[in-house]
């Protein structure tokens, strides 16, 4: 038998089912791997002892034929999902020591499906960032390094701990959340697959809120099939989230037919911006060629308001964040810094508890929502957002799916791009438009840069048509045949 860690989620599940592998062996191998990769700082809280105990129960269920879809499968949970009895920090000092008395719907579903959590994964503070450097618990290191250059690289963000843990094979798969690209960009940076489903597919209940009209949970794993399996267990209607879609969840694994003949794949011409890295453009062209070779028809489409997506996002998301983060007041949960008056206690608590990027976004959001500026900023952004969504609706009258790059560059080094917030925001240029429109979108590893770092291709689909996104991603993944592994991991 091959090394246990080499098995994909799908293969591990088969091995568990035919009892050629026990859950105790599988979870034990991953628990050792978590310990061996601690230098990446991918976990904020490990729950390995609990996982090893749970594996024993999983083996009993497997033996007695009571296995559920993910029985015995070791996963990681982004530390933005509330987990009953297990510290949930959102990467922030202000929530240090917070032990939720309840479980998020998504993690409850995963547990009900038999998945075993190895712990809570590091992230940018309150999921605000594209590099994982804003976490109060320290930056996550990517397992990848550039050829001939051993400087540590960022894993992307905000789901950087999830991405690094999957890429380093410290978990079989992980949950992520995506507000403007926080699943897809780190997936691209670390050579894994990641899908953000349609807004409303996964319940937001129990996920620490950043920007409620954009936040959506999704799956990160080694390949498209594993993402389909994990997402299947996460998705579905939840009365506890009023924006959760009351729609049945199709069988996404069954959607992976390997056949995209006749599929219309759109290429948004506005994404070909001046100054885009030639390697990224070449990979994009390669992806289009793979789709054409598989029998798809390539159609150029126009999304004329694309250039305004980032500015729109950086009004809408901070405005919602400033409202959502008002709850961190030092009264009901989290850390408190005393003050003589109530207001002084609030100011001291929030001044000490929030990091620089979170503070920046709360202040921007507070300003754009304040009297006299609301119409010029927030209302204007909501209107431009409507135009961006309309662009997509019109494009999807001509095509079934859109293909673009995931990120404008490969991963950068810790310390690069750190001085200028706007340069960091530009990382999300290809992912933010789909977030604003609430569309399902996925990144798959598709090639290597000249310095041997992973690059991703990005597929965007119609609302609630994850099936087509996954089917097309699966075909492109096969064509790309991405097998590179991070050196030393």
């Amino acid at each position, binding site marked *: 038998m091959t090394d246990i860690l080499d098995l994909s989620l799908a293969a591990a599940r088969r091995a568990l089912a035919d009892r050629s592998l026990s859950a105790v062996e599988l979870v034990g191998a991953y628990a050792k791997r978590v310990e061996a990769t601690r230098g990446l700082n991918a976990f904020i809280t490990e729950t390995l002892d609990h996982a090893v105990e749970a594996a024993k129960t999983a083996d009993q269920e497997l033996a007695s034929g009571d296995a559920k879809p993910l029985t015995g499968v070791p996963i990681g949970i982004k530390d933005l999902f509330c987990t009953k009895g297990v510290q949930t920090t959102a990467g922030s000092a202000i929530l240090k020591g917070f032990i939720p008395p309840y479980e998020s719907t998504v993690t409850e579903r995963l547990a009900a499906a038999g998945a075993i959590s190895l712990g809570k994964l590091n992230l940018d503070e309150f999921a605000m960032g594209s590099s994982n450097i804003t976490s109060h618990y320290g930056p996550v290191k990517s397992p990848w390094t550039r050829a001939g250059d051993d400087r540590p690289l960022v894993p992307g963000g905000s789901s950087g701990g999830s991405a690094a843990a999957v890429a380093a094979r410290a978990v079989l798969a992980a949950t992520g959340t995506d507000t403007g690209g926080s699943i897809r960009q780190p997936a691209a940076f670390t050579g894994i697959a990641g899908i953000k489903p349609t807004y409303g597919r996964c319940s937001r209940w129990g996920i620490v809120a950043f920007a409620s009209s954009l936040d959506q949970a999704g799956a990160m794993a080694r390949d498209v099939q594993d993402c389909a399996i994990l997402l299947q267990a996460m998705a579905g209607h939840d009365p506890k989230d009023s924006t959760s879609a009351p729609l049945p969840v199709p069988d996404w694994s069954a959607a992976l037919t390997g056949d995209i003949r006749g599929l219309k794949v759109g290429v948004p011409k506005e994404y070909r911006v001046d100054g885009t890295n030639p390697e990224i453009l070449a990979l994009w062209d390669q992806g289009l060629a793979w789709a054409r070779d598989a029998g798809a028809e390539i159609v150029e489409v126009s999304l004329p308001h694309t250039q305004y997506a980032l500015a729109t996002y950086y009004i809408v998301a901070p405005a919602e964040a400033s409202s959502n983060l008002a709850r961190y007041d030092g009264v009901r949960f989290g850390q408190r810094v005393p003050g003589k008056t109530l207001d002084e206690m609030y100011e001291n608590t929030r001044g000490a508890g929030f990091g620089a990027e979170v503070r920046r976004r709360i202040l921007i959001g507070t300003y754009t929502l304040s009297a006299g500026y609301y119409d010029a900023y927030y209302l204007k952004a909501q209107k*431009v957002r409507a135009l961006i969504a309309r662009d997509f609706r019109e494009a999807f009258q001509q095509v079934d799916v859109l293909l673009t790059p995931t990120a404008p560059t490969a991963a950068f080094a810790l310390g690069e791009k750190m001085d200028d917030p706007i340069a960091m925001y530009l990382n999300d240029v290809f992912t933010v438009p789909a977030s604003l429109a609430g569309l399902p979108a996925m990144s798959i590893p598709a090639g290597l840069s000249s310095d041997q770092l992973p690059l991703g291709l990005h597929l965007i689909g119609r609302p609630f048509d994850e099936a087509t996104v996954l089917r097309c991603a699966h075909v492109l993944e096969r064509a790309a045949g991405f097998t590179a592994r991070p050196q030393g991991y």
Partner: protein
Amino acid sequence: MALDQKTVARVAMLARIKVTEADLPGLATELSGILGWIEQLQAVDTSDVEPMTSVADLTLPMREDVVTVAAQRDAILANGPEANESFFTVPKVVE
């Protein structure tokens, strides 16, 4: 739109975040840069456009007005930084 330090201090007060005097100049520069960048939206013609508040095209659902979770006062208070008996506590607000 450039923000001066006085405006930043006022916004910080509205957001209830303590910002030291020393941090004000840097924040004013950063926030002015971001606001200048998002100013580009003014170039978009949105005269006949309805603002988009949600991508979810649904009417908010109604439910029965009934208690769905059991009382769990102790579990809720457990995370309060200075919870006392059956209450959260705050500094004195009425003289």
